[in-house]
């Protein structure tokens, strides 16, 4: 049986293993604003798909489309709510009355450094990012984070030298940079955290001894006999040998 509006087969009546999706059975158009301009788009599509739907070419503002690269950082507001929020455009569904704008690239200053030759990484933080200790606790960065990281807390922990906690807190950071334009002290928290995390990895984390052992074993040819045996095998012998690896 076909649905009168959508023309889709009403599968629910024929097959018990179908998930109810009223939005598919009765697609509804909603009104949204993109960069201040009104458009009607199907409810529930992602913000990035709304851009394509309304005929816009997207070059900047799209990257991995999977919520990991931070290219599609977006400001949005829902109907009648004064609060401007942030999201990743590839991970957010549109709803009626929503207005949004993709965030333009923000010219934050990134310090440059040679991570391996730092002498005192915890002190160097204040030379590389002298603005980091000037945080005025407004918490705007935390509110701006689409990854729900407690950014303000992270900045303070960085300043107090707790690099380990910062590296753990910012493992979710997609470097979208939305914490940066809101900072009244001109801190770029994501860049501070990136420096801190790298310093934590390069300077304050134990080196894995087993790895050095393995590298030396390879250099010393510990596996050479096994390689010789394996590489001399014909196709069939090799296939049989592979089957024995459990």
């Amino acid at each position: 049986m076909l649905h009168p509006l959508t023309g889709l087969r009403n599968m629910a009546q024929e097959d018990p293993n179908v998930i109810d999706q009223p939005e598919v059975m009765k697609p509804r158009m909603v009104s949204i604003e993109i960069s201040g301009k009104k458009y009607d788009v199907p409810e529930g599509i992602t913000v990035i798909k709304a851009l394509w739907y309304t005929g816009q070419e997207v070059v900047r503002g799209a990257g991995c489309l999977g919520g990991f690269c931070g290219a599609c950082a977006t400001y949005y507001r829902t109907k009648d709510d004064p609060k401007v929020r942030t999201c990743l455009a590839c991970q957010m569904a549109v709803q009626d009355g929503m207005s949004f704008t993709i965030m333009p690239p923000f010219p934050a200053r990134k310090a440059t450094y040679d991570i391996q030759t730092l002498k005192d990484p915890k002190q160097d933080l204040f030379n590389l990012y002298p603005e980091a200790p000037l945080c005025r606790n407004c918490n705007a960065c935390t509110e701006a984070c689409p990854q729900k990281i407690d950014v303000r807390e992270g900045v303070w922990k960085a300043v107090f030298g707790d690099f380990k906690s910062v590296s753990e807190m910012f493992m979710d950071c997609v470097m979208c940079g939305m914490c940066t334009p809101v900072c009244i002290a001109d801190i770029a928290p994501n860049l501070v955290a990136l420096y801190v995390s790298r310093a934590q990895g390069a300077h304050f984390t134990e080196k894995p001894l087993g790895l050095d052992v393995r590298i030396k074993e390879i250099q010393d040819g510990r596996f050479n006999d096994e390689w010789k045996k394996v590489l001399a095998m014909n196709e069939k012998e090799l296939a049989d040998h592979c089957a024995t690896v459990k």
Partner: protein
Amino acid sequence: MDIHALQQIVHKTRDARRKQALPKFSPADRDQLIHKYHPDYRASAYRPIRFGPNIDEKTVVELATLLEGDSLIQDDVDLTPDYTTDVLVIGGGGAGCAAALHAHGAGAKVMLATKLRLGDSNSVMAQGGMQISVAPEDSPVTHFLDTLKGGHMHNDHDLLKTMVDDGPAIAKWLIDLGVLFDRQADGNLHVKKGGGSSKPRLLTCSDYTGLEIMRVLKDEVLNQKIQLLEFCAAVELLSDENGQCSGAIFKDLDNHRYVVVAAKSVILATGGIGRLHIQGFPTSNHYGATGDGLCLSYRMGAKLAHIDTFQYHPSGAVFPEQLVGQLVTEGIRSEGGHLVNAKGERFVNELDTRDVVSSSIIRECEEGRGIRTMSGRVGVWLDTPLLDVEHGPGTVEKHFPAMLMQFDRFGIDISKDPVLIYPTLHYQNGGVKIDTNSETNVKNLFVAGEASGGLHGRNRLMGNSLLDLMVFGKRSGLTAAGRAGSMKQGKLTVQHLQRFRADAKKHGNLSNVISPMVLPAYTRKES
């Protein structure tokens, strides 16, 4: 039915399933399953390529059309270089960054060009981890054999041996740059078991392995002040009078002007083809995964390998609609997550290779044991709450924060409810044929990462891609840089294009498209 009602069968059958051990398929059963259900064996999706280095070999229609496509560039193009460099890297993902950093480190002048931003890539999304044989009970030889088995014995032995032998040194390089791999209590690297691997070998940074590596590599490219050309898409390579590669032409996507770069060597690190949506599959790939490097090298005369085989990752999201095609990491299955059909039954050993697991999911769905959505999709359940039951509450949250957040945005708590999945187009197993220094049969043209072919055989093993990127990125970078000092910049011509067009004419004609595609045509043209 309400989704929660449908999910009940997964909750109800969980205890019984936990006691069940599912054997892997015998080689014969596995071959039969793949031949019947894997998309690589759908003959109607394939056709022979009509001309060029891989003439008469079959590939999917979508790719064949692009390979036979015409260039945007005509013979009268102005080839006065805007930039001159030793090493030109095209692509800003894992392989591109690794190549640029190593070439720069070896003293070469390097330029890195990308059509999106530095780092926008598939690499950044890699969640499962990176296979490197660091555990005492493991070895590079075992890594080699596992990969060979996974690739159905079609892998290039030299490339594969190179990758597994170079692996541990890559881990050290990344750690020295500050990459935070998960550790054991004794400080050694923590290793997880991946599908198709006989030993735990996956290095991970929770489920953000690719993101963590890419954050660090991007930062390092910026710290080293490597010259960048962002939002510039490569539209043609350049060749000298001997057919050797000598640079590339880009189209600046902001102002639509051409940018000509003269280079002693070019390293293509342009990634995969997911956005061609082969056979109509959704994809887990990034916005720019349109196979540009394949088209560019093919016109230069570079031979492609294994371009008839693609990887369909078993667990692409099917519901909600906004997440369709996006990955539910294999890590969930590595940690014991079950695949469950509509009848509440398991139907495959979840840790079998990706092609086997994908084929079995397709079988369940085609034989009517799938769960359908009203937008016409179908899938099976992945029992994610099982992880908390098995390893204690909070396991999903601790090990899979990225996954949890992705679904939480749509009101789904994957630690409490199973998710619906179906195979998604994930990886191009083949690509441009390379040697162990990552060079193609066209001199001074290197290809690294997913765009290259031969290493993975006919099915890439989970976790081998991140290592592939780093190893062959490094080798291409070092080889290209090493050569730069003793060679002259070649002439800039498009003679290879004239040859390609003549060849096309002889065998019919060019297809009616311009390639590379650069970006998928998602923009709706009219209402």
